[in-house]
């Protein structure tokens, strides 16, 4: 296997709340990553570091916590002419650059009710302290 995968505790706690189609998408992503790593060419949905295009606060938080997300394809995929497909729902995970491991922490819609980009916070993620604090 190319990559190893683990799950955050809170994700496991919430697992039973997910619909079967959501569970299937997560499982399919996990199997693909185990075999191929984070290889965009093997994944139907868009894979992205969460600090890309984030605002300044989110950028620092996402980068410090190595947050990534994957467009899971729910409710459906939007096919883009210039890149991988996107969807409303995202699967959030942590991945330290250069490692062959991901840790799945949350699944949520792309945007919050206030229109901002959703990033997993505690208890889904145990945040890395800001330097100096």
């Amino acid at each position, binding site marked *: *296997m*190319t990559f*190893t*995968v*683990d*799950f*955050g*505790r809170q994700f*496991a*706690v919430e*697992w*039973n709340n997910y619909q079967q189609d959501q*569970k*299937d998408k*997560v*499982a*399919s992503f*996990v*199997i693909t990553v*185990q075999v*191929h*790593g*984070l*290889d*965009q*060419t093997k994944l139907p949905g868009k894979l992205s*570091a969460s*600090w*890309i*295009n984030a605002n300044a606060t989110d*950028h620092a938080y996402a*980068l410090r*916590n*190595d947050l990534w997300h994957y467009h899971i394809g729910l409710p459906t995929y939007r096919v883009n002419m210039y890149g991988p497909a996107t969807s409303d729902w995202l699967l959030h995970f*942590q991945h*330290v*650059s*250069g*490692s*062959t*491991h991901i*840790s799945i922490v949350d699944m949520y819609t792309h945007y919050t009710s206030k229109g901002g980009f959703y990033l997993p916070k505690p208890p889904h*993620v*145990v945040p*890395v302290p800001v330097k100096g604090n």
Partner: protein
Amino acid sequence: MNPAAQPKQLVDQIGEQLKTIALRGGERPAAGSWEIRKLLADTDRLQSVDASMGSLLKAKVFALVGDRPSTLYWLDNATALSGNQLPYHRMLALLLLGYPEEANDFYDEAIEDRGAIPVDMVLLHLCAAGWFQRASELIEAATIKKLVFKATKWVHFAPRAAAVFGDHGLKIDDVNRIQAEMHEILREENSLWLFDAPRVSIEESFVSMRYVVDFDADKVAAMTALLTDRLSQRGLDGRGLHIAFETAASESAPSALIASDMVNDYQSSAPIFDRERMDRALAGPRFMLPQSATTARDVCAYLDSLASKVQ
């Protein structure tokens, strides 16, 4: 991903390939050539495990090809992924592409944020670009800090060249304009200069920099004549710096500077995978998916079981 493609191994492999092409000099490799396509395929593989490093090395491949938009695109991508502006890499890439005036814009940031790039290498890069005043400043600053240079040739040469430039009132911007004319001719010929440092000397009252190209003597003489004409037309001649092209015939083997160092500095910088960072990022309880889970059904079964235990 190819199971054999481990990040460090891939970076080394790509680095060696880049170095080989760069040291060969002569005509820039075509983007569609087999060797460049192979390099890009390798950087694609690297990107799947280290997107930031893959993007940075891809930028270096495109810089070697002479494809400026693609170089800048992948540098931007590497910046977005790493959260670092990578000013030194931007400066070096623009120098490699032959845009010294734009490279100059990144100098202040680059020198402040040069990461793990050794001071010796910085000195070589500055001298290769004709930035002798800056090289002298670097030497002075390093001397105060009691840093020892290995490139003693440049430690001796740069201050003398800077003094000559000073006598002529030649500023960095003037040097860059002269260098830009030289690079323009190289672009017209679709040629790389051999990635050795230029040959340098101080002749009476001017600094001579000769860039070695892989053409015959007649062609090289014609390129130098064209450069002299253009510098004259723009009022940039006779200013304490004389630049010419030269054939490789009379010189010893290249000592590998800019392009190969673009790779070496990267290889010698921070480790590819930071275990401590991973431990910090993944603090808190985690549940590892067993390796026996090889199908989607196995994953769901594992999580169903896990969920019932952690409720």
